């Protein structure tokens, strides 16, 4: 069953410079139980895409258009406030980048988990609290009975992200959207949190969308990858195939810039240039100013996301379909 269907999503923001398109025609979907990684630099539109899916952006200044924006069978573009509130947290739950600012500082951890449960389920406060404690135990928080009475400032970042995960799981969502869930955490904690998300996904069979700029995170946690750049999808395919043989020159450059691949090499590999200004994007392919194999046509035509091999697609006119198929 398709949990998420996004087709030709465009998100623009009204700003002083005029209309800025942060997402320019993104399409992908997510099957139930599948885990999808969305990878890209900051400003590539990956977070905006997922916020738009849950309709979390303030509209205006944001404007969302799409041929299809479906979450759990519900047309998110047509959903009213009530319908949105009922979908959020129940059909799709979200874990955010910075756990330190994600919780209301004046309410206890327990209160904030309980209010989520009570909003979606027929449960008394007492039942909800018992469930909150069980969830905190599931995310490996010791003395969960005491932690429900804590305020957010009394816990560390890693602990708070566990709380956020517990809260996201509290209504058994069909999809978990994790927006850079480890970026704000210490490196030692990052692996634990990723493992936790992976374990819970395996256990519950929920769908997972993992947004990250960290290819290491992608490699460890997801089945399929969407590579975004300049508000567009550059490439999509199974994670092993993309890591083994990237199709798009941008994906190739991104993989080459992972440090520590060649032992003894001093200088880090980088992609020359900088990511496009969404207020003034380049013509044609958004990557052409930085692309090593760009030709004249790349400056003019915007490449479409085309299937280049089974289960693999790339938006690049320089990547022939046959080359991979053979």
């Amino acid at each position, binding site marked *: 069953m398709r949990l998420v269907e996004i087709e030709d999503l465009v998100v623009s923001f009204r700003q002083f410079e005029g209309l800025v398109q942060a997402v320019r025609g993104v399409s992908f979907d997510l099957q139930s139980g599948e885990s999808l990684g969305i990878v890209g630099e900051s400003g590539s539109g990956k977070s905006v895409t997922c916020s738009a899916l849950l309709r*979390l952006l303030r509209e205006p200044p944001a404007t969302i258009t799409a041929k299809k924006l479906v979450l759990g069978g519900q047309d998110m573009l047509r959903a009213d406030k009530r319908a949105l*509130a009922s979908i*959020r*947290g129940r059909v799709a739950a979200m874990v955010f980048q910075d756990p330190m*600012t994600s*919780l209301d*500082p004046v309410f206890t951890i327990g209160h904030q988990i309980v209010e989520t449960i009570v*909003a979606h389920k027929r449960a008394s406060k007492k039942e909800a609290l018992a469930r909150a404690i069980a969830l905190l135990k599931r995310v490996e928080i010791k003395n969960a009975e005491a932690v429900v009475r804590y305020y957010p400032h009394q*816990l560390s970042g890693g602990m708070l992200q566990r709380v956020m995960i517990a809260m996201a799981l509290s209504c058994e969502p069909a999809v978990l959207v994790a927006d850079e869930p480890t970026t704000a955490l210490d490196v030692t904690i990052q692996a634990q949190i990723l493992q936790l998300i992976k374990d819970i996904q395996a256990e519950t069979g929920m769908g997972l969308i993992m947004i990250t700029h960290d290819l290491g995170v992608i490699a460890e946690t997801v089945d399929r990858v969407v590579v975004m750049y300049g508000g567009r999808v550059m490439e999509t395919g199974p994670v092993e195939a993309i890591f083994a043989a990237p199709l798009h020159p941008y994906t190739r450059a991104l993989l080459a810039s992972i440090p520590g691949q060649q032992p003894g090499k001093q200088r880090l590999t980088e992609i020359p240039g900088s990511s496009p200004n969404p207020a003034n994007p380049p013509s044609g392919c958004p990557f052409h100013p930085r692309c090593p194999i760009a030709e004249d046509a790349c400056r003019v035509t915007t490449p479409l996301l085309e299937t280049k091999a089974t289960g693999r697609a790339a938006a690049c006119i320089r990547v022939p379909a046959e080359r991979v198929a053979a």
Partner: protein
Amino acid sequence: MLQFIIRRTLSMLVTFFVVSIIIFMMMHAIPGGPFDGNDMPLPDNIRARLMAQLGLDKPLWEQYLRYMWGVFHLDFGVPYQSPGETVMGLIAHAWVPSLVLGGLGVLIGAPIGILLGMAAALNRNSWIDYLASAIATLGLTIPVFVISTLLILVFAVWLHWTPASGWGEPRRWILPIMAYAAVPMATYARYARSAMLDTLNKPFVTVLRAKGLSERRIIFQHVLRNSAIPMITIFLPMFVGIATGSIFVEAIFRVPGLGAYFVSSIQKRDYPLEMALMLLISALFCISYLISDVLYALLNPRIRLGGKGR
């Protein structure tokens, strides 16, 4: 917490003494004395006797010590301009109208301002927001004597709804209360708007939406509670500032309040009254800030509980 209160109380006492010294020095730095009036000149020998009687011939430091010794025994002396009563007695009866009218002004103005600011924040960049901002800006920028005069013109002269001035039966209170309410209303409208917007832009509000809570619950439980913390802390100092009377409002509405004495005591070099009024104001401000700080700590779990339990 107890340690915090004790520390703050001690520093408050120090502040109080420093303030008393500064006021005392500034008061005597103004040239002239209480019996230098030109309309009724006194012979030199009588003036000298009066000065000696009141201890004004002594060195300044001795005068100060004598005065503070009296203050310790709650004896604030006798006002020169009304020798038939004590300073304490004069302040006690003159304060009542100021406290009633100013106090009601704050109690009515502040909630209206909060509602206005909330409506503005929740409808940002709409006509409601612009209207609220206009009202708030006008309330803060139009001087209170202009507001008072306009109120009299509209409600008393044109509409004949209320008496133009006075103290006495509560019908006469309406206009001065409205005049007093303008500043707290405007201040709170601006404060509530910015506090609400500040909270609405916090990441946790997006998280609350992503959890599927209703907008009403998010606003009235989470946003309001977070915004209330800074709003509560300005209430008491504002109350002190307004409920001690305004010379303009009281002069225009002919209210026999405390406000006029702030000016007359300085003009007439009425040292005991001037000193008592200034000390009263400083003490009230010190105490109101202390209570505000304690309230702030009590409402904010980050301060109430410190980092304990991590």
